[in-house]
């Protein structure tokens, strides 16, 4: 009689979903970062959908090969992607307990981030000096320049913000305040900033 209504089917206490533990064995920090990145990915998607709607709805679109320095953008992309490697190495070194190495790799990651931002700023300067403004540009439809500035600008903010975040993490790792788990969460964010660039890069420069 005691079994009535107890839902024995769900009495699988060993199940990872049975409560009292994290089903994915991750702490709230990491889980929350994953969720945040999902929502941030959708913010970027909204902007990219905007770009493509305007671009496909526009009779002409400037030829990027003549306006932009594709080689420079290639270098920027390479730097950003390589910085994900140093980030991963930093997490690995922290896990091994080699905090000194970890901080060096983090420094390299931060420098790569700043290099990317600096090259992006060069690109912007070159654009602005050529006469591009948010609502006008010498090459064609205004949508070309405002989508460029807003989307790369929003991504650039993520990169600079990420550098600050990593800086704080480097400090915490050096002082022994954070461990590999916390750094890994920062690494997720940095990987995301890379990944988003892989979508922005073709949308703005290549296609």
């Amino acid at each position, binding site marked *: *009689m005691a079994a009535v209504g107890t839902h024995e089917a769900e009495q699988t206490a060993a199940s990872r979903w049975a409560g009292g533990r994290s089903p994915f064995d991750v702490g709230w920090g990491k889980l929350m970062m994953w969720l945040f990145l999902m929502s941030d990915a959708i913010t970027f998607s909204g902007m990219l959908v905007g770009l493509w709607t305007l671009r496909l709805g526009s009779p002409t679109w400037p030829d990027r090969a003549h306006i932009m320095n594709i080689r420079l953008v290639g270098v920027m992309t390479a730097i950003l992607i390589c910085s994900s490697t140093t980030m991963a190495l930093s997490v690995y070194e922290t896990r091994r307990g080699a905090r000194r190495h970890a901080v060096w790799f983090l420094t390299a990651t931060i420098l790569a981030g700043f290099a990317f931002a600096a090259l992006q700023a060069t690109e912007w300067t070159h654009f602005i000096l050529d006469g591009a403004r948010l609502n006008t540009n010498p090459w064609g439809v205004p*949508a070309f320049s405002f989508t460029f500035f807003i989307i790369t600008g929003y991504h650039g903010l993520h990169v600079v913000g990420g550098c600050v975040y990593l800086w704080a993490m480097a400090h915490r790792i050096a002082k022994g305040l954070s461990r590999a788990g916390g750094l890994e969460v920062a690494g997720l964010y940095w990987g995301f900033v890379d990944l988003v660039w892989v979508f922005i890069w073709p949308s703005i420069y290549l296609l």
Partner: protein
Amino acid sequence: MDAVAVRQPEMAPELHPRESFIRHYIFSIDHKMIGKQYFLTTMFMALVGGAMAMLMRTHLAWPDNGVLNPEQYLQAVTMHGTIMIFFFLTVMLTGGLGNLLIPLMIGARDMAFPFLNMISYWTFVPGVITILLSYFVPGGPAGNGWTAYAPLSAIPAAEGGAGLGQTLWIIAILFVVISSLFGSLNFLTTVLNLRTQGMSMGRLPLTIWGAFVTAVLALLSFPVLMAALGLLLLDRLAGTSFFEAANLIVGGAASPHQGGDALLWQHLFWFFGHPEVYILILTPMGVVSDIISTFSRKPIFGYKAMVLSLSAIGFLSFLVWGHHMFVSGMHPLLGAAFMGSTIIIAVPSAIKTFNWCTTLWHGRIHFTTAMLFAIGFVSVFVTGGLSGIFLAIAPVDLYLHDTYFIVAHFHFVMASASLFAILAGTYYWFPKFFGRTMNETLGKIHFALTFLGIYGTFYPMHFIGIHSNDRRLYQTTAYPFLSHAGPVDVFVSLSAFLLGFAQLFFIVNFLWSLKYGPVAGDNPWHANGLEWTTTTPPPHGNWEGALPTVYRWPYDYSVPGAQNDYVPQTVQAIPLAAAAGAAGGGT
């Protein structure tokens, strides 16, 4: 990070009875206090939004008396919609009920990240202040409708309410969006990681399932609104033209914008906007399921079907946004696809409705005020849902679009239903959070008048809508073919005043019961949920001593042969009736 790191403290945290006033009431990190802050703030906003409705109805009943000029009328419409949707329903359900209930119902000490929870509330407050400030700027508040369709919302010269008021509107909504994102991060992490021992996903109360799916929707849809609002703000302030095509003439002058697309705003807005209406209904569906089960003294019928249909509605809500745009000039094939996906949503909604009815069937129904509002919810949800079928059919919608028919539809299915569930939830959980029960007599008067007021206000709108009364029309008397709508409008307005008046019973009841209501025990309704196993009101940390362990789902009512007609989730072996006649009733 290993699993140990997410385990909660076994014992309740040290209580600090001498916590400073500011830490306890203002910058609290206790989810119950934050929930109460949200609750009271959004209730205040509901009064502001309700006042806007009263103004509109006063004008519409006697349109020639000049209560509002056309501009003020549109501003009242806009602010009514904006405040009710963003500042009342959304935040009440997530920030208010979600905060109050999630940790208690899953057996957690607090949210996963209590500090972020506090930040979330204090991001909402500037939004409230900004939207209220917009009443006092030159030109008045925004007047483009809660959907803020571009290009009207993008060009300051477009109309009176498109000036500074519209800019403040965008900023205010951005605050709400960011606050909601913080909230949903916290809710999802909490429900996934902090369920107590034994509280599997299959034993979660449906209220929590509703809040969980809601948080998923908020997490995935609010960012789109955030992007769209950001772009709109840039259009207004920085001169970009995301949403304005070339050659617009505004106020006699050519607009400098070119290269944008007004439909882009509609797509982005409704990609958010449709999940948003489910953000407003999924938690209520859960709340109502729990209340109906408790007061029918029967297990909820079809728990798994309820969970699956909640999830199905959540999933489908991302595929139907185009049904708001049937008349926007979409390709008819696309319209047909959106029509199909929209009609499919009727299936999970109907499953839920049947399950509520089947739960009531042969139940020993206790007609408490909470139960009346829950049954009222089913009624208004069905009424509004049926008119939704009409509107989902593109060719019918072409005719009914932007008439009062649609006003009637969404006020039943989304606004009233949501409001009923909030009120039901308030009557139901008030004892837990304030230690006293609300007055049942006043509550029943409140219910009767509200129910009559809702039907009196919105039901006749179907008819004037079918007679082509445009929903944003300032003056019906200007059009001879609408002459018959006049008396209906007077009736609707009188019902709306009744509805507004009825809420005074609630306010009086709420305030009076805070101080003088009969003291409630820990479990006044003999309910099964975890929230009823702790003391009333729950201490900081929610349970004195160790966290409870869960052995069953929360719907074990009227188990045959059991001693009581309810078996709380923390009971391992059901105590059997010792002798004949002992079954039923509580202790």
